[in-house]
């Protein structure tokens, strides 16, 4: 998607250090009105720090961000008025009902009584929480809490929504729910900056992405361009039978043949071939020699995960992440 409008968020040369750790290292990107921009990176990449700086909560050591033309370091309040923030943690009160939460945060957002009622109804509808609004949040499922976390961020009709790993720790179905809600927001024209370490989510939602590692951007651009950086890479997904997992020799041979680490999860073995077809025969040979059933084996096209792997030589997530989006 090409966009001729003026950018709404301009991140320019951000730098932030915590002691010896450089959390954000010369970070720059631009987000256009109405687009969903993905910030993908493993734990500790600097995603939360970046969002913290954009929302005016963390002062950068260097660089600046403008939102709708307002500098977040100089015109903080004006910039903040355009932003909706959904923190990585559940920033809400579990001992109150959803309505009490929403009312409280709406007041602090500076909304007036009539407006509060109207907007609460609106954000409840977007997040699908109408039926549970008068229940204590403590009784909510993980997914519902996450949705309320988003609903609060939507108060005040922000132009730009910052979502920090909004699907952490919930089951696939609840995740689907959230992704769809975010999608609807995007379809209605909201600008979204979405951070995650789930490449599937970013691929599903975002038009343009930035892949971060150790505070640095290692790849950035439209999704298809970034994906192409993976070149010829291929992911083999082999059902992990007990025979295979209990065959140390087979695993050992696989490890030796691969440039990148294996990713065993309880259900399957993800074998990432950064050189694609070139490596495939050798790997398949090992599997066949050790009588591993290739029934149910799948081949995946290059994706953001393989990009990350081929650029950094390591997996985006620690092994065996619980759910996948699709």
């Amino acid at each position: 998607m090409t966009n001729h409008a003026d950018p709404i968020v301009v991140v320019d040369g951000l730098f932030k250090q915590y002691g010896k750790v450089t959390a954000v290292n010369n970070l720059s990107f631009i987000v256009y009105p109405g687009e969903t921009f993905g910030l993908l990176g493993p734990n500790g990449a600097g995603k939360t720090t970046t969002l913290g700086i954009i929302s005016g909560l963390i002062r950068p050591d260097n660089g600046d961000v403008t939102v709708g033309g307002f500098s977040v370091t100089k015109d903080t309040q004006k910039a903040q008025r355009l932003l909706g923030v959904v923190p990585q943690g559940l920033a809400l009160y579990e001992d109150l009902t959803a309505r009490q939460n929403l009312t409280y945060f709406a007041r602090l957002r500076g909304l007036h009584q009539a407006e509060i009622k109207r907007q609460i109804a609106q954000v409840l509808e977007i997040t699908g929480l109408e039926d549970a609004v008068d229940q204590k949040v403590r009784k909510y499922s993980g997914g519902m809490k996450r949705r309320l976390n988003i609903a609060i961020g939507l108060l005040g009709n922000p132009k730009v929504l910052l979502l920090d790993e909004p699907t952490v720790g919930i089951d696939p179905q609840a995740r689907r729910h959230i992704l769809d809600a975010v999608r609807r927001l995007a379809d209605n024209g909201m600008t979204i900056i979405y951070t995650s370490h789930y490449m599937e989510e970013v691929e599903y939602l975002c038009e343009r992405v930035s892949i971060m590692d150790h505070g640095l951007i290692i790849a950035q651009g439209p999704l298809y361009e970034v994906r192409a950086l993976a070149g010829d890479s291929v992911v083999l997904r082999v059902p992990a039978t007990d025979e295979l997992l209990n065959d140390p020799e087979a695993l050992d041979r696989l490890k030796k043949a691969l440039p990148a680490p294996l990713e065993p999860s309880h259900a399957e073995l993800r074998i990432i071939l950064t050189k694609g077809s070139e490596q495939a025969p050798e790997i398949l040979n090992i599997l066949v020699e050790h009588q591993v059933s290739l029934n149910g084996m799948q081949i995946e096209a290059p994706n953001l995960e393989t990009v990350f792997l081929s650029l950094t030589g390591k997996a985006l997530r620690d092994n065996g992440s619980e759910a996948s989006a699709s």
Partner: protein
Amino acid sequence: MILRTMRDIGTITMNQLKRLVIDPATYIWLFTLPLLITYVLGISLNSLFAPEFKPIRPYNVGLVQHSPIVGAPIMERLESLPQLFTVTVYDDEESMQTDLADNIITAGVVVPADPLVHPVRVVSTPESIVNQILYSVLRPVLDQLMIMSAETVQFTTEVTKTQLTTNTRSNTENEPKTTVAWAQADSFQYYSLAIAVMFAMYAANVAMQYLAADFTSGTFGRIRSFGVTRSRYLFAGYLSAVIMSVLFVTVMTVVTKVFFGVRWGALSAWLPFTLLCGFTSAAITYFILSIVPANPKIIDGAGTLVFNFIAFLGGSTAPLPALPQWLVSFTTWLPNRALLEGYLRLSSGADLASLSNELTVISISLVVLLGLSLIINSVRPKGAL
């Protein structure tokens, strides 16, 4: 801008209080537990406060009486307590003062010729035990005189205030000096006040824990992204701690008054003093918040540690007269001790104006604690809060 600030502070404070009020733990830890402790201590330590308190030797008390109507019953009362007093009668105040200065007598009582105009005066070392005992022994006598004749009402109220002359004994070595209105307190009376003062700090601390939880959960970040400043938020937190503390003391007052017959003094003095108690208790916990990481568990732990320690030193767990003398005189600057002594005095009929020592200690602590907290919070790395 000011309007928005006030509105934000009100919103945050109300929300904090609302959450505290709907939390069942508040009722258990904050209201039931202190009352239970008061009850248990009141029952079990009653003997410590028994009225058969007896000095090793009776006090030598001088009496100058210019008005037999008042003087005679006082004389009678003093002589009826030979285990406490030996009475020497003087013709004029001057010779009594000389003996007082020479340590021949420990205290003196002066009954003026015109008790309607001038109060009866007790002359002794300020805050000494003999002073306290004389006060508690003579008060009922003077109260009775008030009942006898309507005209004596005025002088009686004057009389019950212990007046001290400048020429008091300075030699205090053989006499324990305590500022507690000990002689009038029984164990329920003492511990109701002592536990109230101690748990007022806990009440404030619980409110502060709620505040700290917002820092760890990211809720504070969210609120700040709404344009609410840190100082506004901290102020609201302080305010809710004050209110919790005042609320707690109020409940303690009402319940102990009704169930244990505890005296808390006149409402007109109790109210401002209790507000001051709230401000001080909240300031202690606010200071704790500003020197430890903003984490509810740490605030809780640090609070428990500090409160237990200063409550002990301040006479809330072991009664002050039971503590070693050097410790008692060393801890006069403790705000919670000043609060306890203030309440004890109020309960024995003193008015606010006579609490100048306590009020000084309390105001200085308040200024120091809040001042230090403000300074620390302004130089502290912002990431910490």
